[in-house]
């Protein structure tokens, strides 16, 4: 059975935190922050806002765009690495607030690659569960606000995607997923903070594994890199996105970027990027999703015009 992407959605908190607001705290300049990350500003949630609440907002935005009511959903998947509670995870609350009744809701307690893994799972679950809504929501500011080393990088927000067996704009063709747990300590949050990040290890592995997984999934479908209309990647760092474009030998304009405005919103970033991209692009050529993050987990997914 085929799976189709029908729509994307996003939610970004209203509070804009520009580099200037953080520069003094980290003992650097706004320009330095932008030079090492490409980030000019990020959004931070208000204290009362939660991972589940932002996830609901992104879900509703996605369902509105898809023209689908929540009672038609057969499953909900919610990815988050920054949920405040151990269990139950935010999926239960998101499901309740969307009035899903007894529809199964699955938590993916994964950071950056969570939305990619969610899409890949949904692609296979539509056959048995019907429409699957994938949500990724992160309140990263709660994890990093007091840590000058990482506060500059992260932002808050949520994204969503509706996957269905019903014919839609993009047919999901294939996905590859990988995990290498030997790096689990290189990017980790134990619930009390601070977030630990071995930036060198993350960058070294990400700069290779993202392009490699993209080439792997394209190879499975005999699609060339040049045929791809857009690469919708986890928005970790603008310099990383540029390296991926260079590795793939494609122009940087093919790699969608909004990390400049939102920072790294972890698992939410790829779907927020997809939502923005879909609002401004009518090109229905092959699109590639890819993400890399804590675990390390990484992979890629390719979809094409139905």
């Amino acid at each position: 059975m085929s799976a189709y992407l029908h729509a994307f959605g996003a939610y970004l908190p209203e509070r804009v935190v520009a580099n200037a607001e953080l520069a003094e705290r980290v003992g650097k300049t706004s320009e330095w922050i932008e030079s090492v990350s490409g980030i000019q500003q990020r959004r931070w949630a208000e204290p009362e806002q939660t991972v589940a609440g932002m996830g609901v907002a992104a879900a509703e935005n996605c369902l509105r765009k898809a023209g689908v009511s929540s009672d038609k959903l057969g499953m909900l998947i919610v990815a988050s690495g920054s949920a405040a509670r151990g269990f139950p995870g935010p999926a239960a609350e998101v499901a309740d607030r969307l009035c899903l009744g007894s529809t199964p809701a699955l938590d993916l307690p994964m950071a950056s690659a969570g939305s990619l893994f969610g899409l890949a799972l949904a692609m296979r679950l539509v056959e048995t569960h019907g429409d699957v809504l994938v949500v990724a929501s992160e309140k990263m500011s709660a994890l990093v606000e007091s840590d000058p080393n990482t506060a500059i990088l992260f932002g808050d927000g949520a994204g969503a995607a509706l996957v269905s067996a019903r014919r839609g704009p993009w047919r999901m063709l294939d996905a590859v997923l990988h995990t290498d747990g030997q790096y689990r300590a290189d990017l980790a949050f134990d619930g009390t903070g601070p977030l630990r990040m071995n930036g060198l290890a993350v960058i070294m592995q990400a700069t290779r594994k993202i392009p490699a997984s993209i080439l792997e999934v394209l190879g499975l479908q005999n699609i060339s890199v040049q045929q791809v209309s857009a690469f919708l990647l986890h928005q970790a760092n603008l310099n990383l996105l540029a390296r991926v474009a260079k590795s793939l030998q494609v122009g940087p304009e093919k790699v969608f970027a909004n990390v400049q405005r939102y920072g790294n919103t972890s698992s939410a970033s790829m779907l927020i990027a997809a939502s923005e991209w879909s609002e401004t692009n009518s090109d229905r050529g092959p699109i590639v999703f890819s993400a890399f993050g804590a675990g390390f987990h990484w992979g890629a997914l390719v979809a094409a015009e139905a």
Partner: protein
Amino acid sequence: MPDSSRRQRLRQLVQEIAGKPAPEDDNESLFESGLLDSFALPDLVSAIEKEFAMMVPDSDLSPRKFDSIARMDAYLAEHSA
């Protein structure tokens, strides 16, 4: 065993990537000294692969193995044909 010719080639690569001379001390960390940033390291490893006609597997992509001329030299001594 340190290889002076190989170290010279490594110095040249570091200089090309960093745009500045490599440190005098082969044991000096290229990152802690600020000569290379995290995004330059993958470029350096790619340059090493090209210069020495070898592949560095992902499992060896550890900053500990490439953060000084001496460590890169040791890695190449162990892995070169």
